[in-house]
Each structure stands twice: as structure tokens, then as C-alpha cells.
């Protein structure tokens, strides 16, 4: 196919949707807002699907130069879009899951204030996310990178009258800025060393210089990692994601689970040519990812807010993807990104359906017994839980096992430790997901008992299944959560690992261990049994003996409190980072610099002008004779000057 693919249309259509809904949506009837928003997401999806169908006939990588953006000397950055295997997968995830979540939102947000605003923001997010994915250079990617941050901020703070939501939005934005700062520095280093920001040119130069190992490439890679940790909520910048759950649930599903937070993983895979040259940076990613996976999973064990459990689980799963990148198994990372997009979006949307059914209740302690009342949500949620726990043959099993296997066979000395921690995390994941499942759907409803409490706003009554506009995306995503992993069945299990082969032009061939297939099968069996143990403990604690968790919590009260308070990391950051910055801002910057230098300087200039004016105003007395005197004096001076001569004549003689 030689004709242009018009890639630029893919991001621009949602942007048009944003403009229409954002500018005029307030006056539109709801149906029109819905139509505009859905069409603006459907068109890119259809286009991407069309590209996917003709994909084999394309010459890759396909690039599209739309316009020149910046030129300065030899440096130039363009509005250029690129398409390769990696982009295609990301495009399919973003447009596909994005479209499903748009549909879901129609039902979920139906009763909300600012319906039009919500969809305008969602379309804006789609625009920036697609720009990020399609960009052919770092700068355009950065535009998308910043833009999704903005959309995320707007959507987290969607309930703008709620203080906690506004604060969560600010927190997300500020923490992301720290990461963006790293990304910016990485770009500056790239310009300094390569003179260009185009992906293909940078990677070509790297490929032509095999002697470049570590050194400045490590520096660039480390700054990119900082950027990725901000966007993908890894240690040390993960703190914003749990708070981001203040946003509406479809937003949590789309932005904070399926797409935006995976941008960091995408970026690392996209720039893997740089990371491949820096074992230190790779180890850093692997350690960050594994530590985050375990850390977030332990916090997730004790959270009681259904969305927060899912948020920590997202952080944890993103840690897995980072682990995959860190052991240079990029295609495994992308594979997990893909399956995670399905099952985590499904988890959030199902949780949203539960919350919807309960009229806004998010606390799992007052749920329970919902299995019979909302059966479809229950079944879709079950699919998602099985998928994330890595139960054969659901999607998460293949991708997570692939990552653990790659970590195990990694030549990196840390490989075995990473594998073990990853395995442990898989067990924890299984436990907290089944805990959520049992608490929400099984046992007796605890809503009545809590209704006497403070927060009784009518839940427990009128628990109802959601409408089909919400259930349809759930069902589709449930199917995808089951079969989504089948594109990457490893050869050891009789599959063909299609996704690894598909991505190999971008990421390079995957590792194959000497131990071969029996090893892979053994590891899969181990992780399955670990997941089973996790399930069994959850079953024991939350189904067989519901009084057990409380007893356990009181026995190991210290650990329980540590986890419940999320290791006091927020408080630690508050004391170590936020408080000093606030103090410096308040006293040094505001007190000294702002009032001292800026205000003081302004005042000084103002007063000196006033003083000078007071002096000069005496001249303008209104007395005609004094004017005449000055006039005559001036004329006499001029006369004298003409007589003696102007300029140099006067000065040098």
C-alpha cells in the first residue's frame, strides 16, 4: 500500500470532538454530546482497525511528515508520526479500550453534572494519548506526555467542588512534573549528543556506534527512567496514583489503569536502543519495577476502598512491566501491558458498576452478598480477577509468566532474586484480588449494619444491575480478558508466542534459555501454585472464617498499621519534601524575594519616579512669564551654540 495512511487524522479527530464538546457542549442536549464524543473516538478506532487489517502489506516503519515545527540551525523537530508494530499494539489498546470506556461512561455519567465537560476531557485525553503513541520524535512525544498529564489532572479533579478531588488532581500534576523534568533533561542530553530528537535518527546513530556503552547513554536512560516513574507511578513517584481514584471510575479505568500510566513502559520500550547499551539503567528499571510491584501489593492487602485496592494493584502490575523492561524482555512488557489494559480496565469498570449499584459506596466493608443482586457484574469481575491472578488460561497467566520466566533466565545477576520477588508478589496479588472478590460479592450484605452509621445515604436499598450500555463494554472486556493472552502463548505450551514474533522487528528477538521448555513449564506450575495459595488464604480468611482478619490484624498490629497507612510514605514526603519547599517558598521566596526584591523594586522605581516628578513639576508653574523666560533662555543657548558650533567642535576644541 503506497498511499498515505493519514495517521495525523487519528489524534486529530478526538481533538475536534474535544473542541466541539468543549466549546458548545454546554448548550447541547445530552444525546448530541454523546454522539459527538463517541464518533470522535469511533473514527480513530475504525481507522486503526483498518490499518491493522492491511498491516502485512505495509512497509515498516512507516513515517509521515506532516509539517515542520521547529528549526534552529541544524536542529529541527517536526510534526511527524510513525507507525510500527509497537505503535499498532498501543493504538489498538488506546482506541479500542478507549472506545469501550467511552460507551461505558455514557451510562455511568448519565446523572452527573457536567456531562459535556467529562466527554470533552475524555476526547482531549484521547488526542494527547494518540499523539504520544504516534509521535516520531521525543519532542512530539513529550507534547502528548504533558497533554495526558493535563487531561489526567482535569479528570481527577472532575468533581471540582470536592476538596479531596481538587487536591488529588494537583498532587498528580505536581508529581508528574517531577518526572517530566527528567524527561526534559533527557531530551536536552539527546540534543547535545545527537543533535536530533527523531527516534529513527537517534537509534541509527546508536546502532552505528557499538563502542558507545554506558556513559552519557546511561545518563540519558536514567533521566528517561525518572520520567517513566512519574508517569507510570513507580517508586519513588507512585504516590499520585492511589489519590487519583478521586476521579470518576471510567477515568480510573481509562487513564489510570489501561492507557496513560503505561506510557512510561511504552517510552522505555520505544527507546530500548538506548537502554540496551546501559546495563546499569536496565538493572535500575528492574529493581524499581520489582520493588514497586512488591511494595504496592503489600499496601493493597489491607486497603478497604475498592478503587484503592485496584489502584495499588495497578501500581504493582506496572512494576511487573518495568521488571520485564529491566531484563530486556521488552515484548513481554508490552504483552503484559496489553493484557493488563483488558483486565484492569475491566476490574475498574466492574468496580464502577458495583459502586453504581450501591449508589456511590466504595467501602468494601459495607458491601458483601452482591453476587446474586448484580450477576453480570459479578461474572465479568470474576473473569478479571482470574485474569489478574494469573490463572490458566486467562490473559494474565501468559503475560505474567512470560515476565517471570524472562526474569528467571535473565543473564543479570539479580535475575533469580527478581523472579522470586515477582513470584511472591503474584501470590500477594492473588490474595488481595480474591479478598476484594469475596468481600464484595460473597457473604451476607453488611450494608444494613452500616446504614445506621454516619454514611448511610440510602445504600442497601435498590441495589440494581447496571444498564446494558455499561454492561456491554464489561462483557466485551471480559471476553478479551479471557482470550487476550492467547496471542502470546509460549512455545513451551504449544503456542507460537505470536506477540513476541510480531514485535521482534522493534524490540529485537526474545531470549531463549538453554534449559528450554521444561523449565518454563515448571516455573509456570510454580507460579500457578503460588496464585492458588494466595486464593486459598483469601478463601480461608474472608469466606470460611470472616472473623479471622480482625484477629490477625490485632495480633500483628504494627505491620497492619504500617500497611494501612501505606508505610507513611505520604507523610514522609510531606515532611521531607513538601514542608521544606513550603517553608522556603513562604519565607525565602515570598517573604524575601517576592516582597523584598520584586515588590520592593517596583516600589523603589515608583517612588523615584514620583520624586523626580515632584522636582520637575515646579517648572510647569502655569506662569506665562516663567515659560517665556525659559523659552528665551533656550533660544539664547541655541544662539550661543550656533555661534560656537555643535558637536565635536564644541567638545574637542
Amino acid at each position, binding site marked *: 500500500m503506497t498511499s498515505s495512511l493519514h495517521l495525523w487524522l487519528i489524534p486529530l479527530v478526538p481533538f475536534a470532538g474535544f473542541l466541539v464538546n468543549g466549546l458548545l457542549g454546554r448548550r447541547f442536549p445530552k444525546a448530541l454530546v454523546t454522539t459527538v464524543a463517541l464518533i470522535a473516538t469511533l473514527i480513530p478506532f475504525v481507522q486503526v482497525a483498518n490499518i491493522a487489517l492491511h498491516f502485512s502489506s505495509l512497509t515498516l516503519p512507516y513515517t509521515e511528515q506532516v509539517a515542520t515545527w521547529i528549526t534552529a540551525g541544524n536542529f529541527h523537530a517536526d510534526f511527524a508520526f510513525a507507525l510500527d508494530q509497537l505503535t499498532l499494539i498501543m493504538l489498538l489498546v488506546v482506541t479500542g479500550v478507549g472506545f469501550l470506556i467511552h460507551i461505558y461512561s455514557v451510562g455511568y455519567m448519565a446523572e452527573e453534572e457536567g456531562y459535556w465537560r467529562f466527554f470533552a476531557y475524555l476526547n482531549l485525553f484521547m488526542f494527547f494519548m494518540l499523539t504520544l503513541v504516534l509521535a516520531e520524535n521525543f519532542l512530539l512525544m513529550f507534547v502528548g506526555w504533558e497533554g495526558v498529564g493535563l487531561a489526567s489532572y482535569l479528570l481527577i479533579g472532575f468533581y471540582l467542588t470536592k476538596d479531596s478531588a481538587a487536591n488529588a488532581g494537583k498532587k498528580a500534576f505536581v508529581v508528574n512534573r517531577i518526572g517530566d523534568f527528567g524527561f526534559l533533561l533527557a531530551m536536552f542530553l539527546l540534543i547535545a549528543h545527537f543533535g536530533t530528537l527523531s527516534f529513527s535518527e537517534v537509534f541509527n546513530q546508536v546502532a552505528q556506534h557499538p563502542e558507545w556503552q554506558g556513559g552519557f547513554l546511561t545518563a540519558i536512560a536514567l533521566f528517561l527512567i525518572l520520567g517513566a516513574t512519574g508517569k507510570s507511578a513507580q517508586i519513588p513517584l507512585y504516590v499520585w496514583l492511589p489519590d487519583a481514584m478521586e476521579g470518576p471510575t471510567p477515568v480510573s479505568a481509562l487513564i489510570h489503569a489501561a492507557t496513560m500510566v503505561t506510557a512510561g513502559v511504552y517510552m522505555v520500550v520505544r527507546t530500548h536502543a538506548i537502554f540496551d547499551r546501559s546495563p546499569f539503567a536496565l538493572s535500575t528499571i528492574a529493581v524499581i519495577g520489582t520493588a514497586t510491584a512488591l511494595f504496592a501489593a503489600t499496601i493493597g492487602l489491607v486497603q478497604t476502598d475498592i478503587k484503592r485496592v485496584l489502584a495499588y494493584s495497578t501500581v504493582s502490575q506496572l512494576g511487573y512491566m518495568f521488571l520485564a523492561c529491566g531484563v530486556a524482555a521488552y515484548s513481554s512488557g508490552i504483552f503484559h501491558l496489553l493484557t493488563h489494559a483488558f483486565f484492569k480496565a475491566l476490574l475498574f469498570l466492574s468496580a464502577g458498576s458495583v459502586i453504581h449499584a450501591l449508589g456511590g459506596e466504595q467501602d468494601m466493608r459495607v458491601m458483601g452478598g452482591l453476587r446474586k443482586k448484580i450477576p453480570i457484574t459479578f461474572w465479568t469481575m470474576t473473569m478479571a480477577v482470574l485474569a489478574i491472578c494469573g490463572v490458566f488460561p486467562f490473559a494474565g497467566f501468559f503475560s505474567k509468566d512470560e515476565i517471570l520466566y524472562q526474569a528467571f533466565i535473565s543473564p543479570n545477576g539479580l535475575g533469580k532474586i527478581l523472579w522470586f520477588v515477582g513470584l511472591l508478589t503474584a501470590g500477594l496479588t492473588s490474595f488481595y484480588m480474591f479478598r476484594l472478590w469475596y468481600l464484595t460479592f460473597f457473604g451476607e450484605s453488611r450494608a444494613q449494619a452500616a446504614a445506621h452509621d454516619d454514611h448511610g445515604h440510602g445504600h442497601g436499598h435498590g441495589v440494581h444491575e447496571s444498564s446494558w450500555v455499561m454492561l456491554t463494554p464489561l462483557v466485551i472486556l471480559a471476553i478479551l480478558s479471557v482470550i487476550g493472552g492467547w496471542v502470546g502463548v509460549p512455545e513451551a505450551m504449544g503456542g507460537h508466542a505470536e506477540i513476541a514474533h510480531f514485535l521482534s522487528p522493534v524490540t529485537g528477538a526474545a531470549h531463549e534459555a538453554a534449559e528450554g521448555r521444561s523449565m518454563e513449564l515448571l516455573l509456570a506450575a510454580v507460579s500457578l501454585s503460588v496464585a492458588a495459595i494466595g486464593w486459598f488464604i483469601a478463601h480461608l480468611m474472608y469466606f470460611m472464617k470472616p472473623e479471622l482478619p480482625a484477629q490477625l490484624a490485632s495480633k500483628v498490629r504494627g505491620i497492619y498499621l504500617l500497611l494501612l497507612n501505606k508505610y507513611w510514605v505520604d507523610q514522609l514526603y510531606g515532611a521531607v519534601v513538601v514542608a521544606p519547599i513550603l517553608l522556603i517558598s513562604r519565607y525565602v521566596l515570598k517573604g524575601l524575594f517576592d516582597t523584598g526584591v520584586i515588590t520592593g523594586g517596583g516600589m523603589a522605581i515608583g517612588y523615584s519616579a514620583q520624586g523626580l516628578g515632584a522636582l520637575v513639576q515646579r517648572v510647569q*508653574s*502655569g*506662569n*506665562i*512669564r516663567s515659560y*517665556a*523666560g525659559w523659552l*528665551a533662555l533656550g533660544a539664547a543657548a541655541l544662539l550661543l551654540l550656533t555661534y560656537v558650533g555643535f558637536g565635536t567642535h564644541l567638545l574637542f576644541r
Partner: protein
Amino acid sequence: MVVPIAYYLVLSAILFSIGVAAFLIKRNIISIFMSIELMLNAVNLTFVAFAHQWHQVSGQIFVFFVMVVAAAEAAVGLAIIIAIFRTRNTLDVDHVDLMKL
């Protein structure tokens, strides 16, 4: 007998100086006004003298321009003076320093 140009110029300078001095010293607006006219005419005299000296007509044309402008100025100036006198009952410039009527 031809009068040398220096004579005209000296006379003109004397007239102009008298005009300037009167302009600075006098307090009555009418007198100040008259001293302005005197300065204008001193300049006119030099124009005419030079026009005669160099046999060029442009100097004389300038004189006509100056006279026309002076006439216009007199009309406006006298109107202002009358307005001032009506509002303030005085023509002493030292008492007219409010920069408004």
C-alpha cells in the same frame, strides 16, 4: 544711495530684542501680545532686506505668510484675551496661572 544690509539687520535685531525684553517684563497680556507682534515684524524686516539684497522674491513671499499667520493669531489671541478678562476681570499674567479659564 544704497543702504547696506547691515543697517537693516542691526535695526531688526534691536527691534527683536525690544520685543523679547518687553515679552519678559510686561505683565499686561495686551502688551505681551504687542511685543510678539514686534518680534514678528523684526523678522519680517530681515526677510525683506535679504530679499532685496539677493534679488529673490521668496523672502517677500515669506513675509506675506508671516503677516497672514500673524493676523490669524491676532484674531485667536484677542478672543482668548477677552475670554480671560470676562472670567477673571484682570489681564495680569501673574494672576492667570491656573492653566485653565
